[in-house]
């Protein structure tokens, strides 16, 4: 069977599985639609959270970016896992005790004002929409390769499928479907990694393979890789900071607290039966997430190695290989089949700048004069980093069934998270905004309809912006995390840990935090990410002008602003009412937790 037919078969089978489960568990009333009746086992909930969490950004995009940045890619690895420690200790158990099932309804009650809830909804919508833009970028990559179409067509098809998928079932459908998706995507991620690790190092466990010697030599894989990339003018793989140490630090922090502030993740912890389960659920989620996240650095390093070895045959095996010697690069016309397949999508391009018919893939910003001396006229192969994971098994020449499996995994990752996010958006609009604020008399049916309409609108907006994304999928998602970090996380923290935080402080804090973050991000990336509306000129025109912190990392700074403004405003306004202080006291002890109130 050919590769294309096999891919259709594997993807078709996995989809049949998800849809089958969704039909089997089809949701009925609104409370089931959102929170699955509050009865999901912590381990299953952990797997589903894993699938929900590991999106196109984690599955498709992250390893490619780690491969590009080397050590600098650490920000994603630590940033997207360390937040679970914060979530488990600081937020999940208390929010579970509180017994509301959306973040804005917590804000409305704790900050005794609908205004706080509304600000919460707006922050949540901004963060979630940005997140979906990143997902659509990833969906586009996955579908374009899978169907052999251009990236734009891939995004359009993906939009349709994501919509049908999300509208079809509620959280209950999604919870069990996501357990299945987790299994598919983790297999799809680890199987090729095992193959490649075995090929390169002889060790089948990628986490150990990354720390092993190259097969048949006594040179460590990482030091070989350091040598390969520096030969090609790139920064040393294992030590290359992202920007600066400060930027790496702030970026990691931003992603961590963003994790603990993202509504679609927090929502998961409202659906476990007890406070005790809320704590351990975060642990289980992290176990299942870490299986992928500890494999990713191996995938990143090994895919980077294999890519350079494809373009410069011999660079890995031959200890005396001279990358600059004439004729050491492959001839374009003899390129492997996987390059041709990816050229169709437009995500991999070759331009023969020096007209020698061979592919020079190197860092053309390198100051090293050896490249010009050898007649290299610039980097000729542009590889969109979002394709690295999907192309990885093809680059390593693995069997076709592995390539098909990875395509299925990529689609599962992109679809599951997009669906989870759309659910968070639709519940925010239909429940928190329309039902609680604008039209309290709306029928249950009308509420569900409003939810579906808001899903459709968000897909269209995200798809449109996904055509011209602000960054690679993981970068866009990082911005979404920054927005959540700067607005929602501090307000949640202060709601639980400060008995005196009042509504004025919380609202001012959220507005200031997300405001300053959006200002910084939009200055770099355009207003609402629309190309051509960047206004960096207002700030002197230098990018990352605030202590060299890049916009993707600015959420942590926004969070500091949020805390500072909140406490300043609190001290100037009326103190919090006595009953609210009592409520906070009550949230702090697990005893007396009730099942989530399904009837709102």
């Amino acid at each position, binding site marked *: 069977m050919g590769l294309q037919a096999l891919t259709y078969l594997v993807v078709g089978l996995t989809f049949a599985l998800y849809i089958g489960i969704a039909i089997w568990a089809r949701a009925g009333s609104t409370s089931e639609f959102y929170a699955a009746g509050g009865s999901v086992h912590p381990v299953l909930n952990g797997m589903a959270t894993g699938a929900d969490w590991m999106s196109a950004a984690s599955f498709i995009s992250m390893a490619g970016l780690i491969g590009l940045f080397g050590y600098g890619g650490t920000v994603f690895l630590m940033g997207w896992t*360390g937040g679970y420690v914060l979530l488990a200790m600081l937020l999940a158990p208390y929010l579970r005790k509180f017994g509301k099932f959306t973040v804005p309804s917590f804000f409305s009650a704790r900050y005794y004002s609908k205004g706080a809830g509304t600000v919460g909804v707006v922050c949540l919508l901004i963060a979630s929409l940005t997140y979906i833009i990143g997902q659509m970028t990833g969906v586009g990559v996955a579908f374009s390769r899978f169907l052999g179409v251009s990236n734009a067509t891939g995004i359009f098809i993906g939009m349709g499928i994501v919509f049908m998928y999300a509208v079809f079932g509620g959280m209950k459908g999604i919870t069990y479907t996501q357990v299945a998706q987790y299994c598919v995507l983790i297999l799809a991620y680890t199987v090729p990694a095992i193959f490649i690790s075995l090929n390169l190092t002889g060790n089948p466990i990628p986490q150990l393979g990354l720390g092993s010697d190259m097969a048949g030599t006594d040179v460590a894989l990482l030091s070989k890789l350091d040598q390969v990339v520096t030969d090609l003018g790139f920064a040393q793989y294992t030590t290359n900071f992202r920007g600066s140490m400060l930027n790496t630090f702030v970026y990691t922090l931003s992603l961590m607290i963003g994790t603990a502030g993202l509504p679609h993740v927090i929502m998961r912890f409202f659906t476990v039966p007890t406070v005790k389960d809320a704590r351990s659920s975060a642990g289980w989620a992290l176990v299942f997430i870490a299986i992928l996240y500890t494999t990713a650095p191996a995938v990143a390093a090994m895919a980077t190695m294999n890519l350079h070895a494809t373009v410069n045959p011999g660079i890995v095996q031959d200890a005396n290989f001279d990358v600059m010697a004439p004729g050491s690069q492959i001839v374009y016309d003899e390129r492997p089949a996987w390059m041709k397949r990816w050229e169709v999508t437009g995500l991999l391009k070759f331009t023969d700048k020096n007209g020698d018919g061979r592919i020079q893939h190197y860092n053309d910003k390198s100051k090293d004069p050896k490249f010009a001396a050898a007649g290299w006229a610039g980097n000729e192969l542009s590889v969109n980093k979002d394709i690295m994971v999907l192309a990885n098994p093809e680059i390593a020449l693995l069997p076709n069934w592995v390539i098909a499996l990875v395509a299925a995994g990529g689609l599962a990752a992109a679809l599951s998270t997009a669906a989870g996010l759309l659910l968070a958006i639709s519940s925010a609009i239909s429940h928190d905004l329309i039902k609680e604020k604008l039209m309290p008399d709306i029928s249950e049916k009308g509420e569900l309809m409003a939810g579906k309409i808001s899903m459709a609108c968000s897909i269209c907006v995200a798809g449109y912006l996904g055509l011209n994304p602000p960054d690679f999928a993981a970068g866009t998602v990082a911005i979404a995390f920054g927005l959540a970090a700067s607005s929602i996380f501090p307000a949640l923290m202060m709601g639980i840990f400060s008995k005196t935080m009042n509504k004025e402080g919380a609202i001012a804090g959220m507005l200031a935090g997300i405001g300053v973050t959006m200002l910084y991000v939009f200055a770099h990336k355009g207003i609402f990410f629309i190309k051509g509306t960047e206004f960096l000129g207002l700030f002197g025109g230098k990018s990352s002008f605030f202590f060299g912190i890049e916009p993707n990392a600015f959420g942590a700074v926004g969070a500091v602003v949020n805390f500072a403004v909140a406490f300043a405003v609190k001290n100037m306004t009326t103190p919090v009412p006595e009953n609210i202080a009592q409520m906070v006291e009550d949230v702090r002890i697990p005893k007396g937790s009730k099942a989530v109130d399904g009837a709102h």
Partner: protein
Amino acid sequence: MSTHTHDSVAYWKECLALIRNVLIVWFLCSYGAGILFAPALNSVSVGGYPLGFWFAQQGSMYIFIALIFIYAKLIGNIDKKYDVHED
């Protein structure tokens, strides 16, 4: 219940102390070993891994998992001690 006021202050204090201790370990392993001291730790190798790089891309994540389960266990004990656990 107002009879619990004294207990609940002590309970909360103990919870905060536990959270603080876990956060210290959390910080030292991730931001400390993985970022701030990574360049220094890189001169030590574990297998083929420079140590700072290992903490950043492997070790910190294993430690995060351990921390959550250790925390869940310890705070469960505190809950029982103050009799505030769920039925």
